[in-house]
């Protein structure tokens, strides 16, 4: 088979954006995914799905420490040189000890009177959960939101405002005043503090205009700068940990930049700077996949690439061979960092992210409404420990069943996820067995795992053909700017003269040109077409509109596709 199209493997955020952007400008896109679900590490799982994911990844039932391990192997073929896809051995050691609270959840905490949600109930209502492997929020004025709006992809999803920014301070959880209304309403701050905070935040909003305010601190830390600004201890905590969300030693200008980023996103959609997609973050790559499909992208799930076919002279990748032995020609190949074998890496050292997902029975900070989406910043509990970021989702985000809360904990790893996050969990939460006297919410179920943070890597870090593009996996940052920026860069290389994700026409403006579009699917194996169908079904099952859009069609008002690059043989 010969196909002249950029081929992608997996759809994480970056990849799905690249795929959508390529399809949008008329490139032919083939998505190949080893798994039966979309979005890989960006996926959202039902509770039961998460359990089998844990199983799949052969991790301890209660504490999972894993990294996704593709199982492709090196293969020589003809006289061409094949660049193998790597098996990733990066499995961190698991501490594996069965833990009290998680075991409890298995045996259903019947003795707890105040909480009535049992493990069996959770399993039974498992479909109500949409548990993300990565935990992120969308900055209202971040690149992702801008892109969703610009490309019209936003219509495929719905969003909720993060309603509160909380922090853990002096042994208790309290609300961080960050917007004008919060500062006004705060009970924690004195009026003078209110003024100081507002003054400081107003300055941060356009700090570049007032270099005299911080020029003496460019070589010093943001922490020192805050102290020098006569902010009280209260305010230093709020600004450093909850608004700038940076470690103490961060340079002043970087701290100011982070603060500004936070503040600029305030007030666009609500009183906090963040949005969260209903049904979880896994929706976002899916939205881009939809866009890609609308513009002719083809999806093959449960299918993977075995090896790449390289041209000896140019050293470029000209085709891939899939697990069925089919050869698919391509002009570009986009792959996630996790698939790259150690031999292809040039001393790239990976950092890791420690993650935990908890199902709890109550809000960390009570309020009038049960339905709150909160970002909780927990500063380092002891010197040297990482700051932990916690996102608490309520059932109206459609990520957990009513009466429960889904809590995501994230921090850069310094040890195992358990070592890093358990101290925070034990301070903020209690066990379901405890008597009613404890105000803290109880953990009904928990999983800990580590993920690789490959953001630090760039092109030069890999020994790969020029037309093989590597996307990094999820990173520890709260926003998704990195993934979007990366997608944009890769797209520039793929289609240097095309616009990145121009607005898609509204469905009613699209003119379908009979059945001529089916021709694009020609040349695919039956299996591939079956997968394509499966993709459609999956979308339909999500009750999304217009399933026919996912079949390759010609679209009205589209620029002509650029001439397809020739395969070199």
């Amino acid at each position, binding site marked *: 088979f010969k196909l002249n199209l950029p081929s992608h493997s997996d759809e994480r955020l970056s990849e799905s954006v690249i795929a959508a952007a390529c399809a949008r400008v008329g490139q032919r896109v083939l998505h190949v995914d080893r798994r039966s679900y979309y979005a890989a590490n960006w996926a959202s799982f039902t509770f039961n799905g998460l359990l089998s994911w844990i199983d799949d990844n052969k991790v301890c039932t209660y504490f999972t420490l894993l990294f996704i391990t593709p199982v492709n192997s090196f293969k020589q073929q003809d006289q061409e040189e094949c660049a193998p896809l790597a098996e990733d051995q990066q499995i961190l050691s698991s501490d594996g000890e069965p833990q009290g609270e998680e075991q409890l959840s298995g045996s259903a905490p019947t003795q707890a009177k105040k909480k009535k949600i049992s493990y069996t109930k959770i399993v039974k209502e498992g479909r109500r959960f949409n548990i993300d492997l990565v935990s992120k929020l969308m900055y209202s004025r971040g690149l992702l939101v801008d892109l969703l709006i610009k490309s019209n992809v936003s219509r495929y999803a719905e969003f909720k405002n993060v309603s509160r920014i909380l922090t853990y301070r002096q042994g208790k959880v309290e609300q961080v005043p960050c917007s004008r209304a919060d500062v*006004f309403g705060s009970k924690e701050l004195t*009026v003078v503090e209110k003024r100081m905070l507002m003054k400081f935040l107003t300055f941060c909003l356009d700090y570049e205009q007032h270099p005299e305010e911080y020029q003496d601190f460019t070589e010093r830390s943001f922490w020192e700068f805050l102290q020098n600004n006569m902010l009280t201890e209260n305010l230093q905590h709020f600004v450093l940990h909850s608004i700038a969300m940076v470690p103490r030693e961060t340079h002043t200008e970087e701290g100011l930049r982070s603060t500004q980023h936070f503040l600029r996103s305030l007030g666009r959609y609500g009183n906090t700077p963040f949005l969260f997609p209903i049904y979880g973050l896994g929706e976002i790559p899916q939205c881009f996949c939809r866009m890609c499909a609308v513009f002719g992208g083809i999806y093959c799930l449960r299918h993977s690439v075995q090896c790449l076919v390289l041209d000896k002279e140019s050293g470029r990748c000209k085709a891939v061979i899939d697990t069925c032995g089919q050869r698919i020609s391509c002009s570009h190949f986009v792959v996630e960092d996790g698939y790259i074998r150690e031999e292809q890496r040039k001393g790239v050292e990976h950092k890791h992210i420690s993650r935990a997902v908890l199902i709890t029975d109550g809000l960390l900070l009570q309020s009038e409404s049960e339905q709150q989406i909160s970002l909780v910043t927990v500063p380092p509990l002891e010197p040297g420990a990482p700051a932990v970021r916690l996102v608490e989702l309520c059932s109206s985000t459609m990520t957990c069943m009513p009466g429960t809360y889904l809590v995501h904990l994230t921090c850069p790893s310094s040890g195992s996820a358990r070592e890093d996050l358990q101290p925070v969990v034990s301070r903020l939460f209690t066990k379901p067995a405890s008597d009613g006297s404890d105000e803290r919410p109880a953990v009904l179920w928990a999983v800990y795992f580590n993920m690789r943070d490959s953001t630090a890597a760039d092109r030069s870090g890999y020994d790969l053909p020029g037309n093989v593009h590597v996307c990094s996996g999820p990173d520890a940052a709260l926003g998704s700017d990195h993934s979007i920026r990366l997608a944009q860069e890769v797209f520039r290389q793929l289609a240097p003269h095309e616009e990145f994700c121009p607005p898609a026409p509204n469905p009613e403006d699209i003119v379908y040109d009979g059945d001529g579009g089916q021709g694009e699917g020609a040349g695919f194996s039956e299996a591939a077409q079956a997968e394509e169908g499966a993709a459609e079904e999956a979308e339909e099952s999500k009750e999304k509109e217009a399933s026919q859009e996912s079949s390759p069609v010609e679209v009205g008002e589209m620029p002509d596709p650029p001439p397809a690059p020739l395969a070199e043989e």
Partner: protein
Amino acid sequence: MQFSIYIIAECNMKLMTRDDKSLLYNVGGKEGVLDEEVLLLTQQLLSSNPDFATLWNYRREILLHLETVRSEDEIQRLYEEELSFLEACLKVNPKSYGSWHHRGWVSTRLPRPDWARELSLCERCLSLDDRNFHCWDYRRMVVRVSGVPVDQELQFTDRLIGSNFSNYSSWHYRSTLLPLLHPGSPETHSHRVCEEQLLKEYELVQNAFFTDPNDQSAWFYYRWLLGRGVCVCMISCVYVSREGERVVVAFSRPALSVGLLLVVDGQPQQVNWRSAHPRLRHSPMWICDLPPGTISDTSNEHNLTVHWTERHTHRDCALYTGRSESWCRDSATDLELFRSELSVEKSSVLQSELQSCTQLLELEPQNKWCLLTIILLMRALDPLGYEKETLAYFQTLKEVDSMRTSYYSDLCSKFMIENTILKMEYAEVRVFSLCEKNLSTLCHLDQLLLVTHINLSSNQLLGLPPQFAMLQCLEVLQADDNAIENLEGVYHLSKLEEVSLRNNNITQLSDLKILTTCPRLARLDLRGNPITQIANIQSQLAELLPSITELLL
């Protein structure tokens, strides 16, 4: 076709689509027809242009007619449809007068109104635009008719202010609710709020102006909280002069002389009251001349009473033997006349408010609202003690808010005059001297009724206003080194003997004509005025003012 003419006059034909025009023609043709077909026609027209009052009126006529021929259930359904149609109209134009008015009308006609629904509609509209005053009006109507408890409404304002405190409407609504919910004690004025609640409000509003000191709405509410003194209308002074047999009555605030009655030694007098200056129709001061011989004999004692029947009040004044004049009045200090800008009773409250504001000023030295509030608080607490600080703050205010320099100058002048009056009262003298204080305006002149000597030299006065004529006892006027060009207020000052106006801006002889009303004027100093350049001015002046014995040019 009266009706059609209205329609044509009301709508801009150019803006209408062809469809709308033909619809309109149809409506015009249906004049007098009150059925559902016309209801439908007008609906089509109104949905694209909801500000079409005549069509709304037509609909009301139809609906009223249908009320008489349909069952209650049908009417309920009809009006409910009307409400959902109106909702669509409000989506087209959320500030349409016609739609909101019609909604109000429909809501009151509805057999079984659903007020909760209306309240939530308002809430939704206000969450989209919290300053939509149409919606505020409509909401107040709903609240009134459906009897929503006041405390619930107060919570509503809490919520709106909590989400955005830059909202005059919410603050104002609050100011109307608080006196109902937490009335002040009966002896204080009815529009006041009880002390305990007042302290909570101070805290709330301080949170707002500390969070954003440049937001005006909170400062305005703060001014409301601090209150404004209510000046009770009364007779503040009665003055009698044997010479000229004249009685002067001063009120605490300008009024007409209607119902003013003078009784001398038990005899009602037939007198003509005139205001101090013909240009003052509402005047705080009224003057009358007694019939010749009534009180001219110095060996007689007289008792005068002025009744003010309009206000059911009166004031006595005794003129003793041998005295040439007499008066009866409250002193300015007794009345605390000039604290009336703020009416908070307890100075401890004011003191702590002053502390908070001073604290804010340290953080925001350029904030005009804060500066102005501090000045007001200082004046309410101790106008003389804080005089120096007040002047300094005024100076800063003029610098940071240069657009309002004149306003601040006038306000400062007013306060300086008040202070000088207080000082004069404490010293129990009849000399008023206020030099080199950058006075730009004159006020409180009714308080200077008894002053015999006034010195206003070295200020920035441009004239002596009509109110100046209230200085009925004035003998010597000094106003050198100003920029005075008119002397309008030097009018019928029967005791005025000496006027010094050196270095002012008097240019024409006609400017001085008013001085002919002052019969005793003997000395006039006009050196340094442009008028001195006129040829023959000396002889012209001698002719104009024959009483003058000493003229300096």
